[in-house]
């Protein structure tokens, strides 16, 4: 029988990754930080009941995903706020376009991401930016791999459609 690692070890091994995930899910640093605290607090409480050969990483993602859902429903839209507050983060990937268009596009994507159903946003972030396998995502979200894949696909389809609509709309206005 494999012994469980110290809880501290889990915190050290996974807190940065879970924080990045929550940051992507919440769209904001302060919310992500609160969620990180909450995630590991819940994890700490449940740790003694966890069996020793569990997939700790998936387990932490699962808790984080639940925490993010709760926090997300309790707050206002962060999208526009973030683009205003933290422009330094957005370093010129879209150079040929003027600043206004750029901001509009960033806002459009942020809004679209925030409008996604929770599961789709979670699956999408885990797959595209956290680099998790569909197998792990399925474990986290509690479904099949095909379902995880469908969630990512639906998310992407909606994001792209909303982005296209927003950018075409703004072009027509001129």
């Amino acid at each position, binding site marked *: 029988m494999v012994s469980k690692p110290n809880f501290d070890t889990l915190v050290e091994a996974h807190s940065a990754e879970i*924080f990045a995930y929550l940051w992507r899910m919440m769209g904001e640093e302060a919310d992500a930080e609160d969620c990180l605290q909450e995630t590991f607090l819940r994890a700490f409480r449940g740790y003694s009941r966890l069996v020793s050969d569990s997939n700790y990483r998936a387990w932490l993602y699962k808790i984080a995903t639940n925490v993010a859902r709760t926090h997300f429903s309790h707050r206002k839209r962060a999208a526009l706020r973030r683009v205003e507050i933290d422009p330094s983060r957005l370093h010129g990937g879209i150079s040929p376009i003027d600043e206004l268009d750029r901001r509009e596009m*960033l806002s459009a994507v942020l809004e679209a991401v925030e409008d996604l159903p929770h599961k789709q946003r979670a699956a999408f972030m885990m797959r595209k930016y956290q680099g998790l396998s569909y197998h792990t995502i399925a474990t986290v979200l509690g479904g099949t791999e095909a379902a995880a894949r469908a969630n990512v696909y639906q998310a992407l389809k909606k994001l792209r459609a909303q982005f296209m609509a927003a950018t075409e709309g703004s072009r027509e206005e001129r």
Partner: protein
Amino acid sequence: MSEEITVEREYGNWLDEADSGSPPDLFTVVLDELYASGPNPQETAHAQDRLMASVGKERIYYDELPRSPIGPVFIALSAHGVVAIDFSDGEEAFLSWIQKRTGVYPMRSPERMAESLHQVEEYLAGKRAAFDLPIDMRFLTDFQRTVLRAVMRVPRGEVITYGALARVIGRPKAARAVGRALGSNPIPIVIPCHRVLASDGSLGGYSGRGGVRTKADLLRLEGVSL
């Protein structure tokens, strides 16, 4: 099912593999600009610190100055200050030494170590006379603390003998014990045990890499003529 096949065709480049062959479209560029880089390292460090504080666990960080006149230098830092500096052994030996001394397995953190590494680097380049770093002496005995605090009052460019140092701390007969306390100085350079010489004016001992030769180099760097 048919939808899944479309997924593969349209987004297969990153859905299943990280690498993408084709140039990204505008939507992908905007998306990546927002999400690809992730939170910045300071934000992450801050969030982790808050987390560790709430878990109630001591944390020690370290990093390495890979090139210096005395070879690679490792530095470890706690919330209280510098815990250790080492330039005798490799990384693994350094980490297990810290672990044994403090009970904490240190984590590499360039963000948190930047300032202390910078000061040591400046000092070794002859561009800094004194250090402005907090020192964590919690893992030492009372006697070691007394000796090392006394050594810290010996300024750059000056030296003292083991015997004189023993008198300074009010233990005139303890020159040998003073020598041993200095020999186990966990924070060489910043706590300048190299400024302590034998009574006959010879260099005495030094336990860092290069031994007394390093000691002589450090003293010359400080303008002491030997």
